[in-house]
């Protein structure tokens, strides 16, 4: 177990190292020179050299990358005029645009994206397992059809289309909900949920269909197994069989999927955040991309990479933890 832990985490770190190398190489070798953009119009060669030095883009790429890694692990010092300023670990540099530390920018935006992802995940788990269980028990045939239809449609509706339609229906036509603006949960939990409701639904629609499909298949499979037959032969009440046995077997795969999907939602929330104008990490990325603010772009991409790799690692452990048949090697 310990050996597996060490190897798995080692592997995850290796992937992250590869990702950082790839990102850094790609973005800093990019043909658009950020120093020229920062320097602006009427830029003299001397001024440009100064800007390049202040931004740290006049060193060779390998040196820049070494500094970048050093900043991530141990923090680093930046020249700022005559003095230096210290950027504590994990340091992702300073935004070219606003001159704020990228780490602070990310931490500032993270609560929005986390609220979005967790709410959507909870919503789709509840709705998906509910619908999947009902469809799997063959209680309602129409539900089975709805789930199947949704699975197909789920592939066919981009999240921003769902979002636009929801806004059109609930904010414009019916006027039941205000146009979403982000309210921190610490300020007003009710307003937080009310404002995030539509983004949650938009994100959850597709996920719900996937969970419903999995639950349905899982339940049908488990109900066909021998131990269920045995339980029936013992005369256990049907509700007990369904709740304690069938559902349990069917939900195993969902546990690991949830961990992975949570990270996937956070990264795909770029579209939802832009659509609803929520100030999350995704919106930060879109803004930074338009300004060619490389440190922020690299920072957001690294953060999503870390989230996905971490989620995959956690999922592997969870898988072994909930399913006694799985052995960690």
């Amino acid at each position, binding site marked *: 177990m310990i050996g597996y832990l060490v190897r798995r985490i080692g592997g995850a770190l290796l992937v992250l190292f590869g990702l950082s190398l790839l990102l850094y190489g790609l973005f800093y070798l*990019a043909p658009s020179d950020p120093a020229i953009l920062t320097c602006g119009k009427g830029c003299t060669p001397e001024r440009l050299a100064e800007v390049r030095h202040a931004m740290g883009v006049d060193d060779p790429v390998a040196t820049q990358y070494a500094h970048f890694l050093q900043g991530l692990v141990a923090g680093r010092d930046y020249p700022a005029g005559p003095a230096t300023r210290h950027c504590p670990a994990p340091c992702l540099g300073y935004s070219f645009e606003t001159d704020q530390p990228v780490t602070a920018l990310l931490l500032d935006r993270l609560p929005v994206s986390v609220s979005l992802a967790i709410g959507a995940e909870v919503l789709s788990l509840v709705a998906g397992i509910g619908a999947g269980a009902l469809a799997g028990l063959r209680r309602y045939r129409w539900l089975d059809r709805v789930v199947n239809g949704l699975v197909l449609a789920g*592939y066919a509706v981009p999240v*921003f289309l769902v979002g636009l339609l929801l806004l059109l229906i609930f904010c414009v036509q019916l006027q039941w909900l205000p146009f979403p603006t982000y309210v921190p949960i610490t300020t007003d939990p009710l307003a937080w949920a009310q404002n995030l409701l539509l983004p949650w639904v938009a994100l959850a629609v597709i996920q719900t269909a996937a969970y419903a499909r999995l639950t349905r298949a899982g339940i049908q499979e488990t109900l066909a197994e021998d131990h269920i037959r045995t339980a029936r032969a013992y005369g256990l009440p049907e509700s007990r069989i369904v709740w304690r046995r069938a559902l349990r077997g069917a939900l195993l795969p969902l546990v690991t999927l949830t961990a992975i999907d949570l990270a996937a939602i956070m*990264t795909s929330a770029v579209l939802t955040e832009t659509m609803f104008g929520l100030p999350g990490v995704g919106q930060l990325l*879109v803004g930074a991309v338009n300004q060619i603010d490389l440190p922020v*772009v690299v920072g957001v991409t690294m953060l999503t990479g870390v989230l*996905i*790799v971490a989620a995959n690692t956690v999922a592997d452990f969870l898988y072994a933890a909930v399913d006694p048949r799985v052995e960690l090697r």
Partner: protein
Amino acid sequence: MRRALRDRGFLFGAVAALLMVLVAATAPLLAAAAGQDYTTYHDNLLDSARGGVPLGRFGGISGDHWLGVEPGTGRDLFARVVYGAQVSLGVAIGATILEVLIGLLVGTAAGLGGRWADTILTRLVDLVLALPILVLAISLLAIVPPDWPRPLLLATVIAVLGWGGTARITRGETLTLRTRDYVAAARLSGAGWFRVARREILPGLTAPVLTYAALLLPTNMVVEAGLSFLGVGVRPPTPSWGQMLSSATTWFRADPMYVFIPGGLLFLTLLSFVLVANGLRRALDPRQSEVLR
């Protein structure tokens, strides 16, 4: 094939998808038939008192402008939508073909190569599968110079980030196929690995890769629409559905038709391709018929 044709969903999807491909291919002709192009502004068709909303009902639908005009500019929506189909389908098809090519190459190399080649390539595939596609695509598309050919670039970026799945499937199938007797026979008769891959393995890969690629196509279309929605897709004035939906976010209160037309088309096109993929899977891969019923 006959089995697929008995499937109503597949038939509907196939007809609709072919129709869409036809529309995209003949976009200039269709726009000419309507007597419109996608760049001309029609200020006279807009209600300047209401901020540039099209005059008339349903977003200004008329005999001249079959689907109305774009709010704010008055450009013909029919012309923009058919040219948008070109971008949407072209990028998605191009990306899918590239993904299949890369996936086949890496997958067969991993499946037929030695242990080391397999280990390294499988690691690489794992890495690619773990990449945050949307985030990386946005970043990559933003840093390339604006004068590079945009649709080609979009297809390449989507493919470079998305070939992992095809490679994984190809590797798995190749590992099974290489243990077959006829492959051993070919090896014994002196065929090299390249020849074996081309003549013996590749035919066996057709069905699984085709079913997977069929589902990749609509997925890539969603990615393209998303990238265009975020403003890193094709450059204006070239129209695309995602881009129209993005500008619709500021107009949907005053002119809901501007959401429904590109949105509805995007949905119908995606749905028809998903139905085709679903039908193909059912016909070619009976084991998996349960997965997408």
